[in-house]
């Protein structure tokens, strides 16, 4: 039988019980009287039976878990590219950049301060006003009126400010030490209230011995700072804060003003870093003789001066070839004792 679309649609709807009672009766009448219609109806019914009897497939047993996993992935993916997420991420990035820039600026500022403190002119309050340690203020120091007696051609000119709560004892010890060093004739001293000033003009060797002999006294100082003047009168001096006796001796022992200034500048940087480092990690290294930053920085190590058993001076001047000339070079050192009470 040749398929008739209209008849097939009628028979298909008849199979699915989608006809009105009247239409259904009409189809039944047609099939009863027309064998071709009956055969076509049977063909379509058998065909539907075939598809209706197809076994139902079952979903994978882990479908629910797969769905949960898929949902988690969806959630993660949706969290990342949302507009809010992007703007928050961009904000975070901008904040990080801002913090980084601020950190760089702060670092540059700190370095700038270090450089400035090294090369800047001494404030009116004098060296002591820059000493970090000790409770004093610049007002206590008063203006620095003392000037070196003598300016050496190739030597060292500086001012050592020492703050101590035991001014009388320290002053007594210093006076005796100066006397024992044979420098009495070369020293001018003034006493004014809370301040003792000793202006010393001597050979490098003698001044160096004096400084070395003060090392045992250093623990009584609340602060110690050394100002090294430049030979050019207008140039700013170098200030070394929190200076140690070894550093002072080392600076004094240099063979020329330039060498003293260079050494002082190195110590100034080192001491400043030590002061500003958290926990002062560097300071113990500075104050240690061996294995210290002295070695690392290849800076000159101070040595105690004075005659040895053979009568020869034990002090070591940096350039052995010009040792004699250097020993004789004049050094001006002004020692200022200040009462820190």
């Amino acid at each position, binding site marked *: 039988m040749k398929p008739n679309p209209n008849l097939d649609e009628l028979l298909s709807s008849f199979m699915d019980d989608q006809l009105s009672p009247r239409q259904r009766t009409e189809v039944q009448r047609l099939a009863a009287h027309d064998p071709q219609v009956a055969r*076509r109806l049977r063909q379509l019914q*058998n065909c539907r039976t075939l*598809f*209706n*009897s197809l076994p*139902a497939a079952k979903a994978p047993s882990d479908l629910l878990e797969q*769905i949960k996993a898929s949902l988690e992935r969806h959630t993660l993916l949706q969290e990342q590219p949302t507009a809010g997420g992007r703007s928050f991420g961009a904000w975070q990035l901008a904040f990080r950049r801002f913090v980084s820039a601020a950190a760089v600026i702060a670092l540059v500022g700190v370095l700038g301060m270090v450089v400035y403190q090294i090369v800047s002119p001494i404030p009116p309050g004098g060296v002591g006003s820059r000493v970090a340690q000790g409770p004093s203020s610049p007002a206590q120091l008063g203006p620095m009126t003392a000037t070196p007696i003598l300016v050496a051609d190739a030597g060292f000119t500086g001012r050592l400010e020492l703050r101590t709560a035991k001014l009388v004892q320290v002053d007594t010890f210093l006076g005796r030490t100066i006397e024992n060093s044979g420098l009495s004739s070369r020293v001018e001293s003034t006493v004014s209230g809370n301040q003792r000033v000793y202006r010393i003009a001597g050979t490098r060797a003698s001044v160096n011995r004096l400084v070395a002999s003060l090392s045992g006294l250093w623990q009584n100082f609340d602060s110690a700072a050394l100002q090294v003047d430049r030979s050019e009168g207008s140039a700013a001096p170098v200030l070394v804060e929190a200076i140690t006796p070894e550093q002072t001796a080392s600076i004094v022992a240099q063979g020329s003003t330039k060498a003293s200034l260079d050494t002082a500048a190195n110590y100034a940087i080192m001491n400043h870093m030590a002061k500003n480092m958290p926990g002062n990690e560097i300071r113990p290294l500075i104050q240690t003789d061996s294995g210290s930053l002295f070695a690392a920085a290849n800076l000159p190590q101070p040595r105690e001066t004075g005659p040895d058993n053979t009568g020869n001076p034990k002090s070591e001047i940096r350039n052995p070839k010009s040792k004699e000339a250097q020993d004789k070079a004049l050094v001006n050192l002004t020692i200022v004792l200040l009462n820190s009470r």
Partner: protein
Amino acid sequence: MRAASINIDDSVLVQQSQAGDTPSMERLILKYQHRIYNVILKMCGNTDDAAELTQETFVKVIESIEKFKGRSSFYTWLFRIAVNLTLNHCQRSARTATCSLDAEGTDPDGETSQLLRDVLSDDRVADPAVLAQSHELCALAKQALLELEEPQRAVVILRDIEGMDYAQIADVLNIELGTVRSRLSRARSHLREVLENMLK
């Protein structure tokens, strides 16, 4: 009719799911997962694709359950999502025509040919139990389904395999009742021709 008793607790489960009750949603998934998978597999003819599309269907249901207003039943809403996803997939993919089902062969052996002749015979009524036992005949039937165009395939699967009535099919496919009737009639006629060609 398979779809007769499927809406019993759906509305309650849907309401609970909309309120964020995960176990209710899981019950809905467990209730419909095999039927959804079966329909999708018959439509796309590939088990991997069917599993993936089934998973995608339920993910979409979960994500959209709050927007479900109940204008249609959850059952037809669920199948609309599944069928639309599958139809889109079939249109995108060329694998439908060369899926795993046709790998089972289209040349029936003697026993299968006799069974198929019985199905196509106009003087006897086929026994569904006997038909279901022949895996090869079932494979031929599935292959014949894939010979149909997707709109016809969808309507005959929803009616003769899933057991939906015409109104539900119209709702799922978003077409008129008359369209369902005519499309189903043409699909059945076409299927018979495909099966007859398999015997030649």
